C-alpha cells in the first residue's frame, strides 16, 4: 500500500517536530554559549549560533584541577559501581532464575518487599556511617549496587533461556559456575549490554549520595561540583561555600555551560549504543512471570 499523506499525517508530523525541537533547542543553546566569549551571551544577541567562536571555556576547564579531579572521581565511581552492580545483580538473578532452588520464593519475597517499603534516607545514612564508609567511594557505590527491579528484569531474561542447555552441560560434566560463565553469560549479551549501560549512566549521574556521604570534596564526582558551578550564577541562591574559590571566580556563562556539556558528554556518547537495547529492556521489565 502506498502511503498517502493526509492532513491528519501532516498535523501529527508538525506537532512531533515541534516537540522534538523543544527537546533539542536547549542542547543547541548550551553548546552555543559554551563556545562564545562571556560578553556575547550576556548581550544575548544570538541563540543557537555563536557570533564569535572561542575554546576558552574548554581550555579553562581542562586546566582546572578541581574539575579534572571530579572527572577522575566520576570515572572511578562509575567503573567500580558498574562492575559491582553487574556482579551482584547477575549472580543473584541467575540463582533466582532456577525454579528448583529451595528457598527461592522467600528470597524473591525479601527482594520484592524492598520495592514497596524502605527505611528511608536517615536510616540508610546511619548504616553507611556505621559501616565506616563516609568519605570513601564505597559509600556511593555499595548502597546502589542493585535494586529489586534490576533483579526481576535480569532474572526474567535468564528464565527465558532454554533449560535443556544447562542440563546438557551438566551431563557433560560441567560445574555450575562453568555453565554460568561459558554458556549462560555468552547467551546473555543483550541483557548484559543493556544493564552495563544502565549502570554506567546511573553512576555517572550519581549526585545526592556524593553530597551526603562525601564530606571530603576532593572525592566529589562531577555532578555535585557541576551543581555548585551553576548554582552560583542563580544569584539569591545561597550556594554553600564554593569548592574552589578560583574556579568560582572565573565562572562565566561559557564555562558553566561547557561544564554542563562535559558532564553529559559520556551519556550522549553511550546513548546510541544504549538506544539499541533499552526499549527491549524496558519492556522486559513490564513482563511478569
Amino acid at each position, binding site marked *: 500500500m502506498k502511503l498517502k499523506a493526509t492532513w491528519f*499525517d501532516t498535523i501529527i508530523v508538525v506537532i512531533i517536530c515541534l*516537540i522534538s525541537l523543544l527537546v533539542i533547542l536547549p542542547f543547541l543553546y548550551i553548546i552555543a*554559549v559554551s563556545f562564545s566569549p562571556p560578553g556575547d551571551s550576556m548581550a544575548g544577541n544570538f541563540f543557537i549560533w555563536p557570533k564569535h567562536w572561542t575554546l576558552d571555556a574548554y581550555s579553562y576547564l581542562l586546566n582546572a584541577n578541581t574539575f579534572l579531579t571530579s572527572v577522575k572521581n566520576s570515572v572511578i565511581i562509575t567503573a567500580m559501581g558498574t562492575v559491582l552492580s553487574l556482579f551482584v545483580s547477575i549472580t*543473584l538473578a541467575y540463582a533466582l532464575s532456577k525454579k*528448583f*532452588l529451595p528457598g527461592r520464593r522467600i528470597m524473591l519475597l525479601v527482594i520484592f518487599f524492598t520495592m514497596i517499603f524502605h527505611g528511608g534516607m536517615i536510616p540508610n545514612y546511619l548504616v553507611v556511617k556505621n559501616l565506616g564508609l563516609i568519605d570513601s567511594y564505597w559509600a556511593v557505590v555499595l548502597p546502589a549496587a542493585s535494586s529489586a527491579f534490576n533483579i526481576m528484569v535480569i532474572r526474567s531474561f535468564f528464565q527465558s533461556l532454554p533449560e535443556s542447555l544447562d542440563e546438557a552441560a551438566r*551431563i557433560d560434566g560441567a560445574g555450575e559456575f562453568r555453565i554460568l560463565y561459558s554458556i549462560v553469560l555468552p547467551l546473555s549479551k543483550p541483557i548484559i549490554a543493556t544493564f552495563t549501560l544502565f549502570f554506567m549512566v546511573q553512576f555517572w549521574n550519581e549526585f545526592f549520595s556524593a553530597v551526603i556521604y562525601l564530606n571530603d570534596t576532593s572525592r566529589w564526582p562531577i555532578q555535585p561540583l557541576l551543581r555548585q558551578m551553576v548554582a552560583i550564577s542563580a544569584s539569591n541562591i545561597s550556594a554553600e561555600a564554593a569548592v574552589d574559590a578560583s574556579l568560582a571566580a572565573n565562572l562565566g556563562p561559557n564555562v558553566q555551560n561547557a561544564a554542563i556539556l562535559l558532564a*553529559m558528554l559520556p551519556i550522549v556518547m553511550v546513548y546510541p549504543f544504549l538506544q539499541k537495547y533499552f526499549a527491549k529492556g524496558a519492556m522486559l521489565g513490564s513482563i511478569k512471570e
Partner: protein
Amino acid sequence: MQRALRPKRFHQLWPFYLLAAPGILYFLTFHYIPMTGLILAFKEYSPFKGMMDSPWVGLDNFRQFFGTSDFYMLLKNTLLISLLNLIIYFPFTIFLSLLLNEVRLKVFKRVSQTIVYLPHFLSWVVIYGITISFFGPSGVINHYLGQWFDGSANFLVSNEWFRPLVIFQSIWKDAGWGTIIFLAALAGINPEQYEAAKVDGASRLQSIWHITLPGIKGTIVILLLLRLGSSMDSNFMQIFLMTNSLNLDVSNVFDLFVYHVGLEQFNYSFAITVGMFKSVASLILVLGANYAAKLLGEEGIF
C-alpha cells in the same frame, strides 16, 4: 522431562546459594538493616548512648510531628506536586504516545523517538543547569523578557514559578521515555480492528477514540494507579536542586524536610519519624492502588 538432571541435593545446590549470597547480603545490609533504624522514631536518639540505649519516648515524635503546621504544609506541597504531575505530565505522555503511534513514516518515527528519549538519561543536575541557563536571572528567557517586554521574572526564586517549572522539567525529561510502555501496549492491538473500522468508514480520530484508547485502557489504569500509589514520593533529586530559601513555602516536601531535619540539624529521631510516616503512608497507598486495580478487573501490579 528429565528431572534427574536438575541439582537436588545440597552438595549440588551450594553453587547457587554461593551465587545468591552477595546479592542477598546486599539486600539485607542496605535495605533491611536500615528498616531496623526505624525504631529510632520511638526513641530520643542520643549520639552518646547510641541507637540501642537511647531512651524510649513512645509516640512523642509522632505527636510532635502531627501537631505542627509543618505537617500540613508538607502534605499539601507533596500531594500538589504529585497531583499536578498526574493531570499534566501523565496525559501528556499518553498524548505523545498516541502521536508517535500514528506516525506512518518509520524513519521519522525512529528519529523522533531517539530525540525525545534522550533527556531521560541526563542527570537532574544537568537538567537543573539547563534550567538555570534558560530561566536564571541572566538566562535567555529573562533576556528576551527584558528586550521585548521590558520586564523580568525571578523564576527560580519565587513561589509562583516553582510548580510550573518542576512540572515542565518532568515533562521535558521523562515524557518521551514514558511513552515506551504505552507504545508497547499499542503495538499489541490487533491491526484487523483498524481495518474493520476503516471499512465501516471510521476516520482516524474515530479509530483512535474507539480502538486505540480502549486498547491501552489497562495500561493506563495500571500506570495511573502506580502513580497514585507513589504520590507521597516527590522526585526528591529534582526538588532538592530546585529548592531555595525563597520558594520553600511551596517546595518543601516530606523528603526535603527529612533531609533538613536529619542531615542538617542532626535530629535523627524526628527525621526518621517523618520518613517513617512517609514510608508507611506510601505502603498503604501502593497496596490500596493494587487492590483498586484488581477491583477494576485489571491484573494488578502484583
